[in-house]
Each structure stands twice: as C-alpha cells, then as structure tokens.
C-alpha cells in the first residue's frame, strides 16, 4: 500500500465577489455575490514510501492547497486522502507526530527568542525524550552549520539562517513524511544550494518521504526523481523530470564559434537563428536533426568550437504550462458565479 493515497480530491472555496466602486461597496453591505473557486479538482495520486516528489505548477494552481489538505490544516470538499493509514483532517495526535510541514513564507519560531527555546517547546509538544532530542539537535545543527546561531534571537537571523532553523524545528521529531512548501523562496543562490544539499543528504540517510513545491527548477532538478504538474487544480502530468524534457522540449540549442568575422550564409536553412554575434552564432534545431545539422555545419564552415545544449529547464516548464492552460473542449471554466446573497 502506498504511503499517501489521494482519491478524487476536491477543494472548493467560496470567494466574496467585491463589486467595483463606491456604490458597489455600499450595496455590498446588504447583498453579496459569491463565486466558487476550485482550488483542487478531482485529484488522484499515489506516493510510495521514500519518494521525493516535486509539485510543479503556476501560481494558484493548487499546490499549496494540496499540501494543506495532506497535512490536515483544511478539510476537503469531497474525496478521500489516506496518509500512513490516517485521514489527515481528523488531526489525530498520532498522525501529527509523524509528519512535518515547512512553509518558506511563514515562520513558526518565536520571533523574539533564540531558536533553542522554540526547539525546547517542540520537544515538550512532540514528547521527544531528552537523549533523542539532544542527539537529533546536534546532528541537525552540524549538518546545517547552525550551532553558533542557536542562542541568537530569531529576528536577528538572515532569511537563509531562519529557513535552516525552520527545517531543524520540523525535523526534530524525526517525521516520516515532510511537506515542503517553497522552502527556498527568497533565498540567495548559496543558501538555496545549502538547503538542497541538506535535503538530498537527509532524505537519502533517513529514507523519508518528501513532497516539495517550488518555483526554482534547480531545486527540482537537484532533488526530485518524480514530478507532478498541477494546473487549475488538476493533475496534468506525473512522471520523471527527464520524460518531461523529452516530451516538451523538442529542440536543442547549438552554439558555434566561427573562425571568421564575415557574415556566414545559409544559416537559415539549418534551423531557427536565435542570435548572430560574430564570431558566435546560436541556432535552435529539432532534436532529431541535431546530428545531421552538425555534420552540415562542419561541411559549410570552419568552426573553432561547438556546443549543444538542452533548453533551460525554466523554458521547458513554461512550455508545459503554456500547453496545459490551453483550453480544450472538455475543460469548463473553473470559476463561475454560483450564488448571491
């Protein structure tokens, strides 16, 4: 049996529809229109123990809502979820002791206190015995290199340091499942890298299950074997990152360094010319024609250097999203005005 099973999950919000202008506000005092917004729509998903899964999707696609449903913070409109044999929104203590949620934009540590105090509180709340607590804390603080920061008020820490503290707090009780919502948001490249390395190491060591949402493709490329794309609350793709690239990036980029500064002729016949900045030339070529193209280039020009690259991941994903948000016949608009009070 899978560690996480989601069946036909739906979550709909009632959103108050504010009318334009002063008159709208005045009439809003007496009568309000609501619309229904589907945050999650007929979602089906299974995750196996030990998987590291990334949730991808444009803003407002329902990724965070799904994580909140899985962690039991909100109730679904319909459908069922089973995580380690528990229904999350029943919020049983036994369940809540076995997972953790980290949100990059939110902070759960006591702002004015050193993180160590918050950790102690966690120890009490999660009933971690002293020996285990000290061991885990030492291990985590060594891995994340935060030993010296434990006794500084959280408000004095940098964003990256704070994120490390949040992770530590979340892992103190050795959860079996970890939900990460944008864990590297707003961090600089080095801090992002540190967190990625840590997560990778920790997941390998402990074999825990991790679900992650992120905007940074680097996070996903570095960490996840499996990618789930969600758009408009629906599951659009489920598979490996490599497959996504195969499926959605049919072209590669070829960069040439020519040995002449004369304008070369016949470039247009090879593929789409992206950039001519002599002696450098950039072309976009169909994946299956790369080999043929290179041999023609060798015939036509004297080349000093040649590189072939995949499209940047960001661009691939943008293609995926663009492809997915094209309305098909079966897609209904997911917002409609349903009631007025």
């Amino acid at each position: 049996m899978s560690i996480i099973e989601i069946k036909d999950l739906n979550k709909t919000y009632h959103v108050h529809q504010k009318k334009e202008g002063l008159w709208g506000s005045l009439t809003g005092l007496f009568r309000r229109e609501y619309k229904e917004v589907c945050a999650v729509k007929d979602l089906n998903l299974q995750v196996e123990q030990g998987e590291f899964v990334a949730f991808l999707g444009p803003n407002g696609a329902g990724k965070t809502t799904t994580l909140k449903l899985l962690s039991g913070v909100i109730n679904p409109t319909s459908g069922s979820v089973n995580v380690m044999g528990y229904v999350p929104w029943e919020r049983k203590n036994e369940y809540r002791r076995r997972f953790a949620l980290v949100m990059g934009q939110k902070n759960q540590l006591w702002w004015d206190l050193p993180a160590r105090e918050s950790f102690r509180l966690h120890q009490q709340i999660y009933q971690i015995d002293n020996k285990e607590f000290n061991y885990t804390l030492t291990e985590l603080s060594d891995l994340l290199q935060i030993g010296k920061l434990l006794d500084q008020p959280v408000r004095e820490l940098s964003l990256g340091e704070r994120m490390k503290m949040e992770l530590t707090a979340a892992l103190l009780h050795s959860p079996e499942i970890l939900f990460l919502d944008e864990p590297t948001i707003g961090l600089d490249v080095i801090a992002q890298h540190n967190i990625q390395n840590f997560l990778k190491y920790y997941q390998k060591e402990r074999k825990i299950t991790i679900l992650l949402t992120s905007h940074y493709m680097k996070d996903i490329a570095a960490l996840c074997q499996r990618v789930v794309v969600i758009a408009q609350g629906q599951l659009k793709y489920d598979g490996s990152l490599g497959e996504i690239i195969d499926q959605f990036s049919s072209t590669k980029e070829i960069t040439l360094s020519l040995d002449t500064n004369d304008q070369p002729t016949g470039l247009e016949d090879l593929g789409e010319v992206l950039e001519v900045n002599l002696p450098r030339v950039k072309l976009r070529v169909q994946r299956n024609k790369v080999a043929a193209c290179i041999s023609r280039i060798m015939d036509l020009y004297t080349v000093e250097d040649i590189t072939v690259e995949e499209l940047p991941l960001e661009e691939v994903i943008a293609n995926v999203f663009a492809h997915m948000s094209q309305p098909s016949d079966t897609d209904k608009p997911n917002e409609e005005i349903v009631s007025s009070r």
Partner: protein
Amino acid sequence: MSNTVVATTISHTIGHRFKVWWMIFKISLEERLAYRGDFALGTLMRFLPIVTQIFLWGAIFSAGMTEEGKLFGYSYTDMVAYYLLTMLARAFSSMPGLATGIAAEIRSGEIKKYLIQPVDLLGYLFLRRIAHKVAYYAIALLPFAFVFFLCRGYFSSFPDLLTFGAFLASLVMGFLIGYYLEACIGLVGFWFLEVGSLLFIYMLLSFFLSGHMFPLDILPTSVKTVIELLPLKYLAYYPPAIFLGKIQGWALVYGLLIEAVWLLFFVVLSRVMFHFGVKRYSGFGG
C-alpha cells in the same frame, strides 16, 4: 491598499489636488465598508458602556448625600445627559488605530511609500480618517437618533442657538485635536520604535481626565484646576459641558479660543515632528 492611486499625481493644480483627495476619500470609504461584520457590531457595541454608567450613577444618587437632588452640581438627569453627550463627543474625537498605524508603518518601513510618492502622510491619513468617520456616522446615525429620542426626557431644555453653535464648534475642534494629538503620538515612533505603552498611557489619561469616565466637576477643586489646563478635556468633557450650560458667557468665549490655540499647537507640533522625524529616518538609511 490605495497607495497606487496617489502615485499618479504629478500636477499640483488645485483641481488635480481635489481629484486626488476625492479618490483617497472614496477608496477609504470603500475599504471601510468592506468589513461589514466588524462594522455593524462595533457600532452597536459603543452604546453598551453608557448603560452601566447610567445605572451606576442611579445607584450613587439613590444613596448619595445630595443637595436638592444634586451631586457635584449635577442632577441625575443632567448626569445621564452628560454621558449621552460624551458619546457624541467621543464619536468625533476618538481615533482608533491612528497612532498605532503610524507607528507600525514607521517600524515596518512602509512609511517609505509616503516619502517616495508625491503625497503628504498627515494629509492622506486625515482624509482617510474623515472617510472612516463619515462611514461610521452614516451607520451610527440611526442608533444615535434612536437612543437620544428614547432618552429625550433626560434633557431638561435645549440650549439657545448661540450655545448650540459653540457646542458644534467644540465637536469639530474636538475631532481635529483628537486627530493631530494622536498623530503626534504615532510620530513619536520615529524616535522610539515601541509606542504601544505610550499610547496606553495616553488612553488611560484620556479615559479618566478627558471626562469620558466621569464629569471633571466631581474632582476636588485643586485637582480640577490643574486638569482643566490640559487639552484632554476637549476630547470628551467640553462639548457636553457647553451643551448643559456649565460654561457660559465670556468663559465660553475664552474656552473656545484656548481650544483653538491648542489645536494650532498640535497642528504645528505634528508638522515639526514629521519634518524632523523624516530627517532622522532618512539619516539612518531606513
């Protein structure tokens, strides 16, 4: 919320200015009306404390050592009328959230948006406040009228037109003093980041010494003389006292003049504080 609107004004013509003012006013009014749950509750609740005051004084008068049915120069009906009128005065002069709002914007650095955009903080907040008040009066008018109609028996006589004019003037000036006084407290945030306690002390003093809790006339004469020198009395005590004829003749004229001077003082003080506060703020690099 509405800061984007303000940003577009470059022109300084009077017409343009009015347009901007109207926009700020309108948006603030809309914002206010958006939270209807809060609004309706808040308005109704304001009438509750006065009920206990009326009963408390009823109990005090029932066993009090009155002279011709009067305590501290007030008959029981006067006392009730005083509290009702204080409600009205407070509806003008109270500025919930003003000082804390300013202080919070300074602390979080949001104050920068007023320094970047061509808009004057004090003027902007002033318009917003008027909008809030207008929204409040629009909803509170009915319950106010209802309560005053129910309690019309407590008003022994309606004052003459001149006194009534003075009463209105003191209400309007009470609003202005309330606004500028609280703005000054908020601006202290430029120097001390935590103004919460200062504000609490101000609220405390204004509750007891503005006449909100009791008419200042019950204080011993020596204390009263000192308290009368403070501007706090204009926030609650003064308008009802005028209405009930406690202040008459030249005393009333002087009283209103002194009130105007206090108003001027706080307007100037807030401007000066804002000027130096911004200087200090930008000096520290925000």
